[in-house]
């Protein structure tokens, strides 16, 4: 849809054409005989026109270079030729040359302008860069020739009237200009650019001038009118084009300034970036150095650890060896010591049996004592062997139900009816070595029963749960133990009663103490002489050992 503005412009174009034609006609009718012969004014006008044309050439050439619009190429050539030829025309005096130059200028211009229909024509012509120069040279030569030898030219004016040749040339030129007008009108229709409209006006004016040439006479009103109109058209178009050019230049300048500013900022950023990079690199280097330092420290640490590990392994091996030697030793010792005991015991028995008739009561008693002593020795050896095994011989830890364990121990010990051990509190299930647990409870209970001095004794097993461990107790109301002996009884082979009174190895409590300490507990006794004793020991809970 056409905008109102465009419509207005179209109307203006038509009005312009019609108006001018009418004006020309009016002038011709009103003042048919008006003549103003003024060569200097004419020359000035034409010269100005030439200057404008040359200027246009340059501007349009620049535009073509910058915008790559091919039509500017044709236009600039047109303006160039027209300008030069009109220039020569300006400086010639009325005559053939005068008219010839003007006509040829129009023709050249019209021809070039019409070429806007073929914007790409320049590409198909070789030596394209030389065309402007060629046009300039040709125009100059033609102009010079016309000035110097007007007589050689075809007749242009005759008796103050233009010849048919002149009229035809101008007519043809006019047609060409109008052809260009059509093109610019189409361009305007397509692009809506004011520039196209102005070029349409320009070419229209030139076209009409060419067409109506026949009706004008040199120096008459119509003649002056067309000159002025042409000049005005030139100036307007030039003004617009130059303005466009200046706008373009200012836009370019702004862009250039923007670009410079951007460049400056970029440079600033780049510098800043370089700074940052340097900073970061320094940081990184520091970090890397740090990491390397740590790495070295780690390597050293690792080496130390490895050395320590080797030492530990060495120590472990030595310990194992020592342990094995000890085990062998214990085994051999106990075995080799037990064997003769057994023999002694048996021989004594056989003597007692085989030679019963020869032995008297004393003799028999002696042999009995002999056998007893061997048994004692056997127990002592067994006790030492057991004691040596604690901590050295470890068995697998299991969950042991102490309630059941203690029950079994009581059954094994087979206490007399009067002295029934009782379990006061609920005994828990703990994780530990079953044999060791058995040994502890068994030894303590056995002691309690063995040393019971009252016919109706009480033996009790207790348990109290504390935060980090269990507190067990085995209590009796037996003879009790004097305070001064409290430490001694836990020593190896220590008995408080003579061995002949109570057969006791004296190892039991030492054994129990060693076991309790192996699992990180404590054992002690609280006692009142004549009223009884309570042995306490602790068992650390899981994870505390």
């Amino acid at each position: 849809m056409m905008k109102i503005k465009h419509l207005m412009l179209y109307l203006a174009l038509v009005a312009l054409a019609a108006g001018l034609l009418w004006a020309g006609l009016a002038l011709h009718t009103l003042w048919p005989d008006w003549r103003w012969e003024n060569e200097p004014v004419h020359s000035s006008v034409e010269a100005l026109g030439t200057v404008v044309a040359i200027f246009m050439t340059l501007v349009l050439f620049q535009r073509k270079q910058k915008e790559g619009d091919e039509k500017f190429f044709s236009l600039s050539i047109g303006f160039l030729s027209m300008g030069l030829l009109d220039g020569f025309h300006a400086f010639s005096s009325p005559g053939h040359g005068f008219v010839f130059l003007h006509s040829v200028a129009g023709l050249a211009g019209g021809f070039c302008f019409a070429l806007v229909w073929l914007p790409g024509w320049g590409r198909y012509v070789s030596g394209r860069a030389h065309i402007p120069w060629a046009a300039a040279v040709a125009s100059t030569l033609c102009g010079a020739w016309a000035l110097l030898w007007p007589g050689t030219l075809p007749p242009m004016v005759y008796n103050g009237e233009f010849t048919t040749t002149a009229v035809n040339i101008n007519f043809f030129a006019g047609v060409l200009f109008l052809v260009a007008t059509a093109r610019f009108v189409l361009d305007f229709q397509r692009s809506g650019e004011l520039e196209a409209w102005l070029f349409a006006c320009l070419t229209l004016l030139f076209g009409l001038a060419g067409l109506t040439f026949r009706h004008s006479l040199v120096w008459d009103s119509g003649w002056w009118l067309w000159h002025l109109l042409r000049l005005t058209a030139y100036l307007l178009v030039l003004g617009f084009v130059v303005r466009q050019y200046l706008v373009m230049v200012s836009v370019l300048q702004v862009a250039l300034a923007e670009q410079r500013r951007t460049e400056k900022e970029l440079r600033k950023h780049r510098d800043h970036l370089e700074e940052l990079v340097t900073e970061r690199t320094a940081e990184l280097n520091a970090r890397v150095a740090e990491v390397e330092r740590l790495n070295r420290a780690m390597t050293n640490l690792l080496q130390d650890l490895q050395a320590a590990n080797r030492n530990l392994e060495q120590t472990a091996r030595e310990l194992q060896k020592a342990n094995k030697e000890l085990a062998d030793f214990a085994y051999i010792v106990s075995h080799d010591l037990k064997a003769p005991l057994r023999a002694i015991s048996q021989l004594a028995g056989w003597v007692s049996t085989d030679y019963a008739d020869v032995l008297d009561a004393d003799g028999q008693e002696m042999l009995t004592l002999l056998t007893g002593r061997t048994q004692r020795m056997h127990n002592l050896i067994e006790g030492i062997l057991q004691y040596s095994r604690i901590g050295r011989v470890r068995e697998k830890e299991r969950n042991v139900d102490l309630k059941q364990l203690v029950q079994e121990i009581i059954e094994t010990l087979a206490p007399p009816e009067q002295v029934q051990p009782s379990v006061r509190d609920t005994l828990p299930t703990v994780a530990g070595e079953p044999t060791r647990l058995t040994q502890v409870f068994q030894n303590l209970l056995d002691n309690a029963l063995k040393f019971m001095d009252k016919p109706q004794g009480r033996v009790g097993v207790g348990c109290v749960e504390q935060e980090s461990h269990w507190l067990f107790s085995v209590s009796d109301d037996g003879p009790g133990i004097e305070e001064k002996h409290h430490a001694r009884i836990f020593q190896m082979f220590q008995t408080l009663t003579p061995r002949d009174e109570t057969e006791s190895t004296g190892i039991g409590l030492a054994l129990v103490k060693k076991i309790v300490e192996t699992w990180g507990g404590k054992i002690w006794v609280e006692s009142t002489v004549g009223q009884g004793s309570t042995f306490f020991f602790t068992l650390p809970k899981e994870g505390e050992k």
Partner: protein
Amino acid sequence: MKSTRPFLLVEDDQVDAMTVKRALKVIKVTNRLHIAGDGEQALAYLRDPKNETPCIILLDLSMPRMNGIEFLHVIKKDKTLKRIPVVVLTSSKEEQDRVDSFDLGVAGYMLKPVDYAQFVEVVKTIDLYWTLSELPPGE
């Protein structure tokens, strides 16, 4: 004992040997008892074709020159000897000895009690068992 073949006792301790002899007498075992003082002597006896193959070997473990375990290794490799039932009669309570003995396929493992009366019971039990049980075929 079902068989009339002799017993072989491999034992170095004189008193222990006397004990076995005495015990067998008490339970009225009539089989002949041959005593070898160590593993080597026992092997020599077994390999001698003049000697009757014993129906049972009573073996002590701790002996000089060749102990019980070593002796077991040897005879259990021997095709003819490995069939003879071996009852280990030892004072060793060591777990390892027990494991090794059964690994080598002994027929029984009895601990020598300190008490003579108990010892007699042990021997009686061995004899009773091998009276009830079938013996491997002999020569």
